[in-house]
């Protein structure tokens, strides 16, 4: 049964990624990896040492005048935003190039420039340039592919002797850019991120069914490449029920909490080790993979994953629209939430309730935020171990698949 299911998922995965369009996406994601690695590591260094609430300063109580003399936080933040934009633009460029060259389109400069400008105007927010942390792969990929396909179609209908910068191509370019400028308000207003964020404040998400729903839907939305609210990515401490729990704990230390099982105490503390779906486990498994490329990916993604950033894994594997990643991710999320919910409900562990320093590895959250350190460590180890067991066959298939391709 397990083999049948695995084969089914594998076939599904191969069908999606064997399509020429998805091959172009895979190439673009991999080509974006070097610039993304620079971006991710610089962000990590900023978060650990230079930001006003840096982890290093908070935890070790070190004054940052030395670090601030090297890099002004505001200027550094701005520089990182520009780097984020470059990452987005490299992805768009690479995707357009891969998509069109496979289709024997020779002159790709006009469509590349068009897509770069169009996606910039589509994603740019008021006073904010689009940054990679808020990037929406589904939208970005969809727009780039639509534009590239329209160029391909248009170009095939033109006289091959027409020069690449002819007025007709410039008109096409202007049309695509105008289309994106017109779609900009719709994209900005129909923000699934804000809608989801508002929904998560409902008390329904303190029930087991509500939490299971989050465990099921979050990996799906993540693998689909949708922009998610911070409550699902990293920080649940602003949710009403979490604040109420903390207030109760601070006012009456030994009283029962009003909402012991909530998004922070189960989902946030036990299913975000290294990012959505405990993806820190993927980095570990990649470290011991057969292929050199995957071992390297495991190595470069390890430290960012430790500090809850799985962007390198997202592009490097890639995770985007990948059934081989989606299925174990859902299983891990459900398993993590079920175990943490039960241990809290059965009073085997005190629920995580305290705030931890910004940027702290999530794997430490249960231990630090709970009053019962030992049981929190044991539950963390059990969930981490089970996550390895769940991911292992899928990651093995994924790495084997690429070896076979070679």
């Amino acid at each position, binding site marked *: 049964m397990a083999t049948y299911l695995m084969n089914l998922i594998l076939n599904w995965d191969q069908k999606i990624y064997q399509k020429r369009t998805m091959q172009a996406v895979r190439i673009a994601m991999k080509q974006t990896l070097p610039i993304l690695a620079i971006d991710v590591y610089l962000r990590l260094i900023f978060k650990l040492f230079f930001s006003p609430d840096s982890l290093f300063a908070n935890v070790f109580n070190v004054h940052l005048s030395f670090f601030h003399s090297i890099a002004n936080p505001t200027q550094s933040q701005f520089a990182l935003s520009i780097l984020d934009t470059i990452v987005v633009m490299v992805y768009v460029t690479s995707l357009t190039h891969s998509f069109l060259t496979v289709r024997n389109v020779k002159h790709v400069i006009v469509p590349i420039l068009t897509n770069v400008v169009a996606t910039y105007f589509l994603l740019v927010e008021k006073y904010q340039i689009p940054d990679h942390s808020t990037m929406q792969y589904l939208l970005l990929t969809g727009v780039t592919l639509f534009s590239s396909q329209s160029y391909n179609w248009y170009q095939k209908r033109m006289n091959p002797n027409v020069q690449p910068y002819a007025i007709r191509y410039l008109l096409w370019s202007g049309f695509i850019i105008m289309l994106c400028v017109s779609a900009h308000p719709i994209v900005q207003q129909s923000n699934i991120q804000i809608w989801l964020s508002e929904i998560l404040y409902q008390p329904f998400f303190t029930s087991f069914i509500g939490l299971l729903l989050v465990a099921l839907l979050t990996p799906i939305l993540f693998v689909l490449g949708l922009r998610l609210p911070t409550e699902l990515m990293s920080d649940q401490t602003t949710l009403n029920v979490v604040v109420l729990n903390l207030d109760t704990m*601070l006012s009456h230390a030994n009283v029962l909490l009003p909402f012991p099982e909530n998004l922070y105490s189960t989902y946030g503390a036990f299913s975000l080790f290294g990012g959505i779906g405990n993806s820190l486990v993927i980095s570990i498994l990649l470290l011991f993979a057969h292929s050199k490329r995957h*071992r390297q990916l495991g190595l470069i993604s390890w430290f960012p994953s430790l500090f809850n950033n799985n962007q390198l894994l997202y592009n490097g594997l890639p995770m985007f629209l990948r059934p081989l990643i989606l299925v174990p991710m859902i299983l891990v999320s459900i398993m993590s939430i079920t175990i943490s919910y039960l241990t809290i409900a059965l009073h085997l562990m005190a629920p995580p309730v305290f705030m931890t320093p910004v940027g702290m590895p999530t794997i*430490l959250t249960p231990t630090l935020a709970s009053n019962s350190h030992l049981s929190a460590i044991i539950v963390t180890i059990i969930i981490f171990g089970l996550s390895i067991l769940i991911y292992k066959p899928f990651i093995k298939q994924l790495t084997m698949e690429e070896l076979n391709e070679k």
Partner: protein
Amino acid sequence: MKNKIILGISLVFLIILGIYGNHWVTQTSTNQAKIQNSRMTPIIFIPGSSATINRFDQLFSLLNETPPAHSVLKVQVDRNGKLTYIGNINANDQQPFIVVGFENNDDGYNNIKKQTKWLTTALTSLQERYHFKTFSAVGHSNGGLIWTNYLEKYYDRQTFNLPTLMTLGTPFNFSEPSLQQRTEMLKDFIQASDKLPPDLTMFSIAGTDDYTNDGLVPIQSVIAGRYIYQKRIKAYTQITVSGDNAQHSNLPDNPEIVKLIQTNIINPLNAQNK
């Protein structure tokens, strides 16, 4: 082998981070518990431009004529943000008066922005020392502008709870007598008014010496505050006092204003503490 070394180093690193992180969590939650359980609800005063931290001394004497007596603490912020504390808060005083004054007490919008930053520094330090969350605020003249700028740009409802603000002769449109001519500051305040706390009760007191101004600030400039606060907060009340003691510099000592502070700020906070 290399991977095992990386994992080993990471494990050691996590243990060290965990030990220090645990210390941070314990310290922070202890501090938060003190703030949460604190019954101290100070009233924080900010003087206007050119005035010193002694600006409210006469007002405090008048207020302390009615028991219980309130201790007075003055905080002077220098140009580098360094704080000097003068006076102290009695151990059993739940409603002390705190004055925050600035070494650089010059007039002007740019200076108000600087003073707001210094105010934030002072409030953080005061909370660390006295562990309070709830306080009420009074601002005389430009002091009201500093509070407004603070509420729009720096106030965090998770950290502080400010139920009542009273401004005395605050020129929300500087010396501009016409509401049609809006200064850059007023425009900024109106634009950011959605950031004001919705549970705030605000009293804007104007003085009239000759029905057009209080000798310094045009009454229309004080009234301009309604464009910032009205319909953005829980309650906005505009009160005008007139007569001999209604000149701009006399406003804090005006008997009507002393009564207003007693009734609208001190008594509600007292009731809350009981």
